[in-house]
């Protein structure tokens, strides 16, 4: 593209963090998403953080209605959406007021000047126009009358002024696309496809985008054009993926790999609903989606489908998991495959529906009545959701158990470039069903005993429809072997132990230190879930400054890797950053008797690399003052 060829001579930055902020109705998520896609197509590495209010349309212009999208693009491998933006685009006074504190000192602030009038200022709680005094002196302020320039650009198209106003986010996108030398074509193509059949909307959005682009070129912003060049990613075919889409595709892949039809029982809940949306599109893959009357019906129907031989899945967030608790216990007792996906959000109760948190770990591990062991796996990045969904299905189907898959709002909505796997490299999932009798009584009579276990402690599953193997199962305690109702104390104790042992015995891969770790540091950072990016980023900074820290990240939280205890005990200190008050750290201390310390954050936002870097540095300093490690041994 000629424009990009020109831009390649622009001064290069190694990375930039941009935050688009505006009213919920301003289309900031879309703007951020388009900027991200164009950057992905251009070859940058990137990470995103969409942040939006729980209200669909909070009162326009208010602080409550501010919606923001942060994107970090770079010419090298990055792991987080960035600690603080270098550029803040504020589409109205409320966005300026709520998000200015995130901007780095001296950062670039681009505002839509047209919105800085009395009414909007008052709604945002300003008693004066911050653009007119010294409030913003510490930033590079660029004031652009985006609304009026957009209306001017659309004037000759026959678009009503009110409709033209709605295209101003494309003006902002055009301007930022020029400033950061983003390719134009992907956005033009996207506008054509997205608004197909609405010619006026297409014309208005393109006119607004072009006006923004031209503004950068012709106004006095000429010296401000820079480029963030493509990152040297490993060769392959890439797509930009968010966690919920990757997770949905992983479930489809698991269905293909196992040969079982995918059945999703779900009830809409933020931030998991997009999985229901995505899977509802994939009927070509034989996917059945069932939007149930409630969370309990959703898991109940998934159990029913699983009993019938489908890959049964239910997707939800924390409040939904709480409701599904009893049904999950049933699946544990029936020893049926089932995947429960928990896209965690801030809690308890309704909590922070659109904000991220990872405080459901102990509920996933222990949140059912009785001794009710369940494998738990957690995704670490948006694209990892694909692999972890397949892993959850593998454990569920090969070991005939419900499995909890933990993701969170940050992974669900955040996106990153994903090097697509070769379908032929994906591991097959082996599923076995009983076809014949498995027990001969004293009189030579042959029977099917649904709880006559094999060497792996797996029970045989006979699907309904299999001639001769009719049998009954239920949530009441079953006699080991025959599966008949049994209240025998010895039998119950045996069954409790068997259920525990068979889950504990599921083989999971050994824990492996993350890249950059040398295995010889004093301090090990143990993470799980979406903290991976921030911990990895912090590790790089600490090592770049001469510090030594190792990092291990757990996908399998139950059972845990067999080598984990030995690994933990080989460090003087273990630090466990979590988006909760210290849940994994409790488990590690209880299971392995190690000096693991928590690092907590519960603000509805992911860790920044800086926060973890700070905690690691402090802990290293503390350990350094006590080089012999007497204090901690």
């Amino acid at each position, binding site marked *: 593209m000629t424009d990009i060829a020109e831009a390649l001579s622009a001064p290069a930055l190694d990375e930039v963090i941009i935050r688009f902020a505006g009213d919920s109705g301003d289309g900031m998520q879309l703007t951020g998403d388009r900027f991200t896609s164009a950057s992905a197509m251009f070859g940058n590495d990137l990470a995103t953080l969409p942040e939006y209010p729980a209200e669909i349309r909070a009162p326009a212009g208010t602080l409550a209605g501010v919606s923001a999208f942060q994107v970090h693009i770079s010419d090298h491998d990055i792991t987080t959406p960035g600690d603080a933006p270098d550029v803040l685009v504020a589409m109205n006074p409320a966005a300026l007021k709520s998000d200015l504190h995130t901007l780095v000192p001296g950062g670039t602030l681009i505002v839509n000047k047209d919105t800085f009038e009395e009414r909007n200022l008052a709604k945002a709680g300003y008693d004066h126009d911050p653009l007119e005094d010294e409030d913003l002196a510490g930033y590079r302020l660029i004031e652009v009358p985006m609304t009026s320039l957009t209306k001017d650009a659309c004037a000759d198209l026959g678009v009503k002024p009110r409709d033209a106003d709605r295209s101003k986010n494309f003006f902002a996108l055009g301007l930022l696309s020029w400033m950061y030398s983003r390719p134009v074509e992907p956005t033009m193509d996207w506008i054509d496809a997205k608004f197909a059949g609405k010619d006026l909307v297409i014309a208005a959005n393109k006119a607004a985008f072009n006006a923004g682009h031209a503004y950068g070129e012709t106004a006095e912003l000429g010296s401000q054009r820079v480029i963030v060049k493509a990152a040297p990613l490993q060769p392959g075919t890439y797509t930009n993926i968010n966690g919920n889409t990757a997770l949905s595709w992983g479930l489809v892949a698991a269905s293909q790999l196992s040969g079982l039809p995918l059945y999703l029982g779900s009830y809409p809940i933020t931030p998991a609903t997009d999985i229901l949306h995505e899977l509802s599109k994939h009927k070509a893959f034989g996917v059945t989606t069932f939007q149930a009357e409630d969370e309990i019906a959703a898991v109940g129907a998934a*159990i029913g489908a699983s009993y019938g031989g489908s890959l049964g899945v239910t997707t939800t967030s924390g409040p939904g998991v709480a409701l599904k608790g009893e049904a999950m216990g049933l699946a544990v007792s029936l020893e049926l495959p089932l995947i429960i996906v928990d896209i965690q959000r801030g809690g308890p109760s309704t909590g922070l529906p659109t904000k991220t948190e990872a405080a459901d770990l102990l509920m996933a591990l222990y949140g059912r009545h009785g001794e009710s062991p369940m494998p738990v796996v957690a995704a670490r990045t948006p694209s990892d959701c694909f692999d972890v969904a397949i892993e959850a299905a593998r454990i569920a189907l090969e070991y005939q158990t419900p499995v909890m898959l933990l993701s969170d709002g940050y992974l669900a909505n955040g996106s990153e470039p994903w090097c697509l796997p070769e379908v*032929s490299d994906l591991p097959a999932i082996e599923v076995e069903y009983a076809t014949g009798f498995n027990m001969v009584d004293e009189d030579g009579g042959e029977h099917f005993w649904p709880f006559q276990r094999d060497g792996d402690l797996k029970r045989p599953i006979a699907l309904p429809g299999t001639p001769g193997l*009719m049998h009954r199962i239920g*949530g009441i305690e079953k006699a080991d072997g025959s599966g008949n109702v049994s209240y025998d104390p010895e039998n119950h104790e045996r069954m409790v132990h068997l259920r525990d042992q068979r889950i504990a015995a599921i083989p999971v891969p050994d824990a492996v230190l993350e890249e950059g770790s040398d295995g010889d540091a004093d301090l090990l950072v143990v993470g799980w879930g979406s903290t991976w990016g921030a911990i990895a980023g912090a590790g790089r900074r600490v090592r770049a400054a001469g510090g030594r820290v190792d990092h291990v990240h757990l996908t399998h939280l139950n059972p845990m890797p067999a080598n984990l205890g030995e690994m933990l005990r080989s460090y003087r200190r273990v630090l466990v950053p979590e988006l909760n008050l210290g849940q994994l750290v409790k488990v590690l201390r209880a299971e392995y008797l190690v000096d693991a310390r928590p690092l907590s954050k519960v603000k509805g936002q992911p860790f920044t690399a800086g926060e973890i870097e700070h905690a690691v540095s402090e802990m290293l300093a503390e350990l350094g003052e006590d080089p012999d490690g007497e204090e901690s041994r």
Partner: protein
Amino acid sequence: MTDVASPLHHATVVDDGPAPETTRADWSSDQEVRWCPGCGDYSILTALQLLMPELGARREKTVFISGIGCAARFPYYMNTYGVHTIHGRAPAVATGLAMARPDLDVWVIGGDGDMLSIGGNHLIHALRRNVNLNVLLFNNQIYGLTKGQFSPTSQKGKVTKSSPVGLVARPFNPISVALGAEATFVARTHDMDRHHMQETFRRAYEHEGAAFVEVLQNCNVFNDGVFASITKKDVRDDMLIELEHGKPILFGSEKQYGVSRRPEGVVIVDVAEVGIEYILVHDEGIRNPSTAFSLSRLAKTPATPTPIGVFRAIDRGEFGSSVAAQIREVQAQVGRGDLADLLRSQPTWEV
């Protein structure tokens, strides 16, 4: 290397040919029945075990799903597939199974507490969707397994362990609830009449979609005789109003009483007084459920003449097969999905 393209074995309904001849013994499991001696559940079990050979059903294609309660033990006694699930959730589990496996006959068994209290939401939605289920609600107007608390069908004023000075709330009428959910098949029978039970169950079995049957059932331990005033042999003629499609609704030993329609709903009349031409002719197939609903309100308590039989039976698209048809239509239009194409369905770029 994995063979990913192998077709998924979505179950479809195939004609297996006539089912082998069976007897009651073939449908009885080897488990000792553990209801209280004299419980009405025994006669329901017997009626069904005797009926199954006549239906031409296959044991391996038959699944009983239940929740919690005395009635919910039912699956253990049928030599079929069966799952004893958790309180109230049987219709939900059965919905998933029926959707995934249209080749199966799925029966749902539960009591009034199971299906109208804790599981009321699942029941009304299964009926609304018209999932292919045969739902038998054993109504004894009491909680039996927890030893005698009032249920959502207990009469107002009822004295129980949890309502020692009388129940304050009004009961649900299960037939009215089912009709309110616009169930496509709604019927009532009782545990004292095997023949009537069997004919009602047969109709439910043959119905495409959700078939709801209320079975008036005696709990001889905690609510003994609650239906005796209408179901005992010597009072039945005068107290049970048998609904028969296409026939005037008459009852009484001499068929001297009838049901007539009035602006305020249906009422019981003396046939000699009003004339046979004013007696309502029962029509199960009226799509508007209003008349059936009015019939369901005829008996206010089990002490007044009570209609039994099929209140409503209409054809409407079955849920699971309609969902499966959407999948087949999409596959016919675009072919079966290809995973590699799915992964490349968003914009991609090469590095």
